[in-house]
């Protein structure tokens, strides 16, 4: 006769697992009633067998086998929004990842990024001294105490040659609009979003503390972010002290206001058919849907078409939750689906507002070999082209 504990192996082999996840802030795990909504809405469902519901159940009862898939979640938040029990499923994955990290079971390519975050304050294995290298021949006002806005650049914009174009466009526009802003250069470190979503809580704590210190030191009141991930970190994650009223906003909000107030008047015609991709962190995470569309529509000559999955139902590029750093084999890339969706609308340009989306979508375009057909531009790049009456 098998003993009870032997039988338990089949029912619930490792109940401690659930407990550990609960302790790592994943307590909502318990609320799941296994309806499968998350699996149905998860963007991965369109590509491969990925089943958050099943993973939750496995974790709850302590079955092994959830480990590899736990790195899949791109933090797009669609499941959380649709979950009838309002379970923060991305948080559960985050908790699971923090445990996996403690076991040293991190995908190696992500580990590289996390190590770089700890050592250099950016995920791109670049030197912290070289963050402001792009400003050498492109002057940007420095932030001093009393400057109205701190322009928080984002590592990807600072280091990635492609995204440097975006931040340069940002700087040009802000200068044109005479916005009182400044950049802190090498004092900036990564907002920590990817560390947090990869479950690297310690690294996140270190990064967020460093930024908080600088914000405090410079008495920062308003932050302009280029990356929605930074925005989300400051708005929803950072632990500001009571009384520290730091307002964070995304650039698209600033642009929309400037255009509305007629400070910026995009007069140059852009004769392209464009579509807009809602970054998950800008849209679902922070409810910013209208401003980018307003900006696009304010540009003369432009033809704006929407994709099928937009706004609250936007389809993720695959870059969130550490996805930018994780290897995905061809045929399993969310970005590919999104790009194809954009191509279907007949658009020649995908406009977006997140450096990760830029990277993922461009990689997909390149990978699909359709770079002659469609390209990716940021809202800033689009706006600047119109302001300078140049081609997009």
């Amino acid at each position, binding site marked *: 006769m098998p003993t009870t504990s032997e039988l338990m192996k089949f029912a619930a082999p490792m109940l401690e697992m659930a407990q550990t996840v609960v302790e790592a802030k994943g307590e909502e795990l318990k609320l799941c009633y296994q309806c*499968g*909504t998350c*699996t*149905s*809405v998860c963007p991965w469902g369109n590509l491969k*067998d990925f*089943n958050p519901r099943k993973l939750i159940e496995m974790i709850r009862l302590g079955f092994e086998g959830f480990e590899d898939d736990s790195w899949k979640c791109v933090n797009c938040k669609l499941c959380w929004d*649709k979950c*009838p029990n309002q379970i923060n499923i991305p948080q559960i994955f985050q908790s699971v990842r923090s445990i996996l990290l403690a076991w040293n079971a991190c995908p190696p390519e992500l580990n590289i990024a996390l190590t770089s975050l700890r050592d250099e304050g950016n995920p791109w294995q670049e030197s912290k001294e070289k963050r402001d290298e792009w400003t050498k021949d492109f002057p940007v006002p420095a932030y001093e105490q009393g400057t109205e806005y701190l322009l928080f650049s984002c590592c990807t914009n600072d280091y990635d040659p492609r995204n440097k174009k975006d931040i340069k466009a940002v700087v040009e526009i802000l200068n044109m609009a005479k916005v009182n802003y400044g950049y802190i250069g090498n004092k900036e470190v990564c907002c920590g979003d990817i560390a947090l979503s990869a479950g690297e809580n310690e690294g996140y704590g270190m990064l967020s503390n460093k930024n908080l210190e600088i914000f405090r030191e410079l008495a920062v009141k308003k932050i302009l972010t280029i990356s929605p991930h930074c925005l989300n970190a400051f708005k929803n994650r950072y632990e500001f002290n009571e009384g520290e009223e730091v307002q964070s906003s995304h650039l698209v909000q600033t642009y929309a206001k400037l255009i509305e107030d007629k400070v910026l008047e995009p007069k140059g015609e852009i004769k392209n058919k464009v579509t807009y991709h809602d970054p998950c962190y800008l849209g679902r995470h922070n409810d910013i849907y209208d401003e980018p569309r307003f900006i696009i529509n304010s540009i003369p000559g432009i033809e704006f078409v929407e994709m*099928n999955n937009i706004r609250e139902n936007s389809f993720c590029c695959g870059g969130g939750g550490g996805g930018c750093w994780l290897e995905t084999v061809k045929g399993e890339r969310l970005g590919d689906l999104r790009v194809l969706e954009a191509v279907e609308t007949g658009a020649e340009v995908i406009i977006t507002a997140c450096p990760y989306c830029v990277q993922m979508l461009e990689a997909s375009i390149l990978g699909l070999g359709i770079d002659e057909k469609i390209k990716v531009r940021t809202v800033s790049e689009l706006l600047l082209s119109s302001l300078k009456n140049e081609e997009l």
Partner: protein
Amino acid sequence: MAASKIKKVGVFVCHCGVNISSVVNIEKVVEAVSKLPEVTVARDYKFMCSTPGQELIGKEIKEQGLERVIVAACSPLLHEETFRRVLVKSDLNQYFFQMVNIREQDAWVTADKDKATQKAIALISAAVKRVQTHEPLPKREVDVDPNVLVIGGGIAGIEASLQIADAGHKVYLVEKQASVGGHMAQFDKTFPTLDCAACILTPKMNSVGFHPNIDLMTYSEVVDISGYIGNFEVTVRKNPKYVDYEKCTGCGVCMEKCPSKVSSEFDEGLVERKAIYTLFPQAVPNKPVIDAKNCTYLTKEKCGVCQKVCEAGAINYEDKEELVKVKVGSIILATGYTFAKPDVLKDYGYGKLDNVLTALEFERLNNAAGPTDGEITLKDGSKPQSVAILHCIGSRDKNYNEYCSKVCCMYSLKFAHLVREKTGAEVFEFYIDIRSPGKAYEEFYTRIREEDVHLIRGKVAQVTDVPVTDDEKGKLVVIGENTLTAQRVRVPVDMVILSTGIESNKDAADMSRLVKVATDKDGFFIERHPKMAPIETASAGIFIAGTCAGPRDIPETVASAQGASSLALKLISKGKVEIEAATAWIVEELCAGCKLCISMCPYKAIEFDEKKKISVINEVLCKGCGTCAATCPSGAAKARHFKDEQIFDEIEGVLSL
């Protein structure tokens, strides 16, 4: 405070088997409590609530001449009444008693035994201090008016009214719509027996219409209720019908001739009705009303066709609303429910995609008296080849309603049967859990499984018309997970039925204020006790029947209606009613007439005596919440049994250790 003579207190500590004694050191407690100067005797017993336990208390009261009694045992919510009866038996006023909760709030929640013991002693000490100032409170009784008001003319209101009327008492039945019948009149078949709703409902509707003891007020609303149990005064507004029912013969010519058409609410907008209309052909009373908003004569003073064609001369465009006052002894709330509106659930394409129907729309579609004469057809008139039925739309979902609507599983299974029977289409039912707890419900579920309905366990996340494969072209695609095979599925179908959940009425909050019965967060009326008093409410004399208290099926609704009517009849047959003793009162000598209490009282139980310039509490209306006592700035309003000094004593007591 002048020191008064110490009253003799007896303390009785219960072991509750081992429930208390395994954690709380009873011996220590008794020893510590005995030492208090006020305590004459302290005893413990295995089961204080048992007959020997009660006898022990009675014996000590008599032998020691106890003036106050304390029982430290379970929650007062469980056994306060039991022990109060012991005091009454022993000729002590029942309010000379205090119960100390050392089980639910000590033994069961404290890990450390010493701490639990210490807590028990502190709680008992507090009670010992408190009971010193307890006052005897008398029983109070008032006469009961034998008339009953029933609000709502659905199956619950109909059933309750008939029961009371048949017992020989007057019933005022107030219905907002132009006819009684409620939602049940919209249904075709009922689960699990599949008998037709109309066949079982219409006879009852007719009885209500013609019963000599029932004063049926359709097209009417209750606008004010004052008074208290046994003596309510109710104001009903009779909305203008523009048809004189004395003269109207119900011939229907006016409805035939009326030129203005509006979408029919009874048929869920699937067809149109006229501006002068009866709700449905079997309406009771079967006489029309004019919908003032859509009548060309009433809006533009043009037309007047109905008046011209009415041979009885029953049309009266000058009709005005009328306020009627009635006196009743009890009120039955049977205001019913609405269905969750799926248009907020954008993901299911309702309102955007053709052939996505709500449950109620399907009921009408399927009803023999409905817009298609009971044919299940798609919008283009063709028969569906495949139908998906999606459970839990707006139910069990924190984004909409967290609760389970209880009836949807069963009616969805019924739909599956009807679709199979009438069209032979493939049916895909997406469910999270099938809930079939009811007589013959599980058997019905079994029967449906035998009918080759495809049951898929998983909640549907999306309905789309964007095809991925050729099979999906021109179809509605239902996307979900089959959680049992752990596969994401896309099912192309012709028709989607959304099993929408039950919601409280939109005006539940207004009704709540009117009847002074609180609603829960979902807008359903709160019972006095969810288990032991599911039909009574916190407002004495007001009972709830049917779905206004939460999702119920027809048998439960009828049962609760019969329960409500029997409680109303109980009141009538008793003739008198005992009312709350622990009410508030105002010390005349202290009241300065600032009127602050008047604005605070939720029951309008306080009136201002203009002669004496003081506030006076109508103790019959008072429910004893004590808000006035907390508010009264001069300390004139006092809450019986919860006076300031009693609470102060209790505070000092709990802090004594």
